[in-house]
């Protein structure tokens, strides 16, 4: 005999502590079990793609800061790469390395936030968040001393970067990198073997690799399912082809694997950064590009491995100073495709940590 209860709808969000912004998940529940999930987004839609069509290529860079506001550097980089591809601009070597350095620092900052908020979803009372903010803060300080902004950096420009690094950057960055392995070990000691985290996140929100590939998941979500794919290696951009690093992959595709992958990516980022700082060549950091850039008519699709996944910009130019079409392939949004399959059959707490393990930022989902 089974007991059936009335199905009822629980609205998680748009105002909810664990939706990372204004994300809404309509869960249809049968008792404790989720039988259907529907995501409702658009509360933060700013029609960025339309706005960008009315501005010049250079003017659009600040928009990209506001996409995934936790990793502005990566967004700048992806967009500028697309424009450079469209206009055929080559970036000097120093600029390429600076881009790598900033993007990897940004990855550490973003993953610190992602891991911390995942831990918060699991119910840790702010401790990992505060610990990780300590390091994130130092990274933001580095950004500030380089370009004057902490969050919306607007640093990577078409043809290079906006400023070369100041003299105090190097010692600060090296000091940070020196203490990072120790800090990461601390996070791991706090979270990784924690019995409750294991109980909560293992075998929860499982994403099979076939479904992950079919539903265009990317970044840690894809790698957590055990797919060896990283655009930094597959389609190296900036200076990644000269740097040595490994791709962490999970084995079971559950929340815990995605968490492990992010944890390991912190270490890999530190490794990349150490090499990049050593190899940083002298010379100009950028080439001069006209402000009202008129790329030849055509189209370009450039993508990078942003912290959240494959971030791509698809630009269509008609020869005017404005893009004819400005499309953002945003990893946060597309990683939500398999969400329904991942949460059906789970309970609300599991759905919440599954959402946390995907790591979305609503600025990028809604654009």
């Amino acid at each position, binding site marked *: *005999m*089974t007991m059936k*209860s*009335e199905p009822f709808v629980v609205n998680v969000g748009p105002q909810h502590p664990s939706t990372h912004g204004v994300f809404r998940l309509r869960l249809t529940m049968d008792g404790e079990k989720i039988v259907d999930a529907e995501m409702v987004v658009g509360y933060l839609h700013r029609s960025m793609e339309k706005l960008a069509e009315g501005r010049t290529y250079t003017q659009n860079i600040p928009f990209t800061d506001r996409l995934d506001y936790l990793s502005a550097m990566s967004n700048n980089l992806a967009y500028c790469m697309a424009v450079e591809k469209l206009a055929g601009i080559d970036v000097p070597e120093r600029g390429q390395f600076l881009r790598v350095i900033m993007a990897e620092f940004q990855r550490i900052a973003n993953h610190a936030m992602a891991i911390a908020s995942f831990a918060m979803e699991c119910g840790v009372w702010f401790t990992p968040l505060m610990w990780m903010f300590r390091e994130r803060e130092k990274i933001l300080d580095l950004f500030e001393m380089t370009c004057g902004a902490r969050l919306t950096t607007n640093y990577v420009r078409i043809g290079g970067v906006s400023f070369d690094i100041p003299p105090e950057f190097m010692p600060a960055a090296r000091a940070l990198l020196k203490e990072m392995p120790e800090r990461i070990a601390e996070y791991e000691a706090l979270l990784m073997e924690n019995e409750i985290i294991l109980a909560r996140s293992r075998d929860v929100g499982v994403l099979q690799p076939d479904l992950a590939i079919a539903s265009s998941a990317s970044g840690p979500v894809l790698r957590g399912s055990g797919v060896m794919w990283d655009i930094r290696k597959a389609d190296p951009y900036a200076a990644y082809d000269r740097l040595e690093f490994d791709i962490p992959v999970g084995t079971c595709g559950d929340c815990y694997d995605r968490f492990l992958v992010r944890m390991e990516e912190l270490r890999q980022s530190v490794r990349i950064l150490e090499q990049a700082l050593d190899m940083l060549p002298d010379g100009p950091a950028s080439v001069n590009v006209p402000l009202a850039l008129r790329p030849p008519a055509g189209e370009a699709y450039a993508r990078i491995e942003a912290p959240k996944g494959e971030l791509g910009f698809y630009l269509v130019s008609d020869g005017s100073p404005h893009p004819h079409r400005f499309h953002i392939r945003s990893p946060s949004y597309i990683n939500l495709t398999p969400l329904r399959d991942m949460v059906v059959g789970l309970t609300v707490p599991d759905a919440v940590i599954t959402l946390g393990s995907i790591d979305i930022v609503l600025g990028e989902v809604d654009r």
Partner: protein
Amino acid sequence: MDDVGSVVAFWMLSVMTLGAAVMVVAVRNLIYAVLFLILSFIGVAGLYLTLSADFVAIAQVLIYAGAVSVLILFAVLLTPRAARDNAETFLQVPGLVLATLVAVTIGAIALVTDWNEATRGAFPETAGAIGEALLDKYVLPFEIASVILLAAMIGAIVLVRED
């Protein structure tokens, strides 16, 4: 019933118990009814206390107010919303008749019986005595009750198992 405090306590508790009991049948909202039932249970526990039966009083709170009522609350919540009010039923008249009969019986017994009035003693340690009685003189009923409860528990588990 010799000192003022006991008398006052008795009357207050009686009014509380009976008033809550009346409210249980009178209120329309089933959740309210359950909450009044809890109040009534607590009143009864207080009455036990005035009778120096501390163990029984605490057990009353623990089992009736703490556990049974919560069970009823869950039962109320798990029934469909439509059946959640204290509506009129066809059992109203039989119920009323039965209640009246019980009241008359109890009242008659209370009036007819020749009560022995005992003076109020000190608080004896009842818990130990009850425990010994349960495991000595009344061990058979005690064990039978345990077996019945176990059977009920297994039955409940079997009923709600998924497969």
